[in-house]
């Protein structure tokens, strides 16, 4: 089995890039691959807890929790997250908080990297 690292910089709401990344992560994890998710820039909105799923908007909380249960490692950029006013007490449990070198280290140990840039 391979290791896939996905870096997401796109916002959860506003494009379907994020939805694609979560579905790809789920598919890879279901096939037995090791998956890492790095959230940076506007992507960090995913880690906020108590998201309300309105049908007109993408939602990330439920898929993220499912990925965490499958063993997917998810890490949010601490600086990006704090800068947007989200504290650890507001965040979904199980998500790691770290600096950008987390992403580079995961890339180093990955067979494939998918970098989804921001808007």
């Amino acid at each position: 089995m391979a290791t896939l690292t996905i870096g997401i910089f796109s916002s959860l709401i506003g494009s379907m890039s994020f939805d694609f990344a979560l579905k790809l992560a789920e598919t890879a994890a279901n096939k037995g691959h090791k998956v890492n998710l790095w959230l940076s820039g506007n992507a960090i909105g995913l880690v906020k807890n108590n998201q309300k799923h309105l049908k007109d908007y993408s939602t990330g909380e439920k898929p993220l929790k499912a990925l965490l249960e499958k063993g997917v490692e998810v890490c949010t950029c601490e600086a990006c997250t704090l800068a947007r006013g989200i504290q650890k007490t507001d965040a979904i449990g199980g998500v790691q908080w770290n600096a950008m070198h987390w992403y580079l280290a995961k890339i180093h140990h990955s067979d494939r990297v998918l970098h989804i840039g921001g808007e």
Partner: protein
Amino acid sequence: MADTKLAFIVQRPPYKSENPKLAVTHAISYQTVEILLEDGETVTPTLCFIGEGVLACLKGQKAMEHYGITSTEMHVKSALLVDLNVLVCKEDIDRFGITEDKILDADDMGADKKIQVVPYDAIQKAIESANHVLFF
């Protein structure tokens, strides 16, 4: 004992989005990645500016004065200070009418490295020699 080569390709203009800044700060983080790697494992980024991304390499940016934030110029200078290879596309600065004397340096910070103004072929080679390519 392995080195992972990364090509950071910055194609978007500074300040319109966060992308150029994030590219530079992520590349700079190679300085501390060793705390998460085994002995002998390294990550070597090359930072390449193409298209509108070359605007990030202009000297004299006034982001702190106008926006109250660190300028992309300061981030790129920090990249030079930590010995990152920084390439900027010659064809693209020519298209914008930017002469090489307008390209920033980090001499005032004591950096040995300088931005290399190179033809796109050299950036293509950096992309081809990288293990992974990250577009910003």
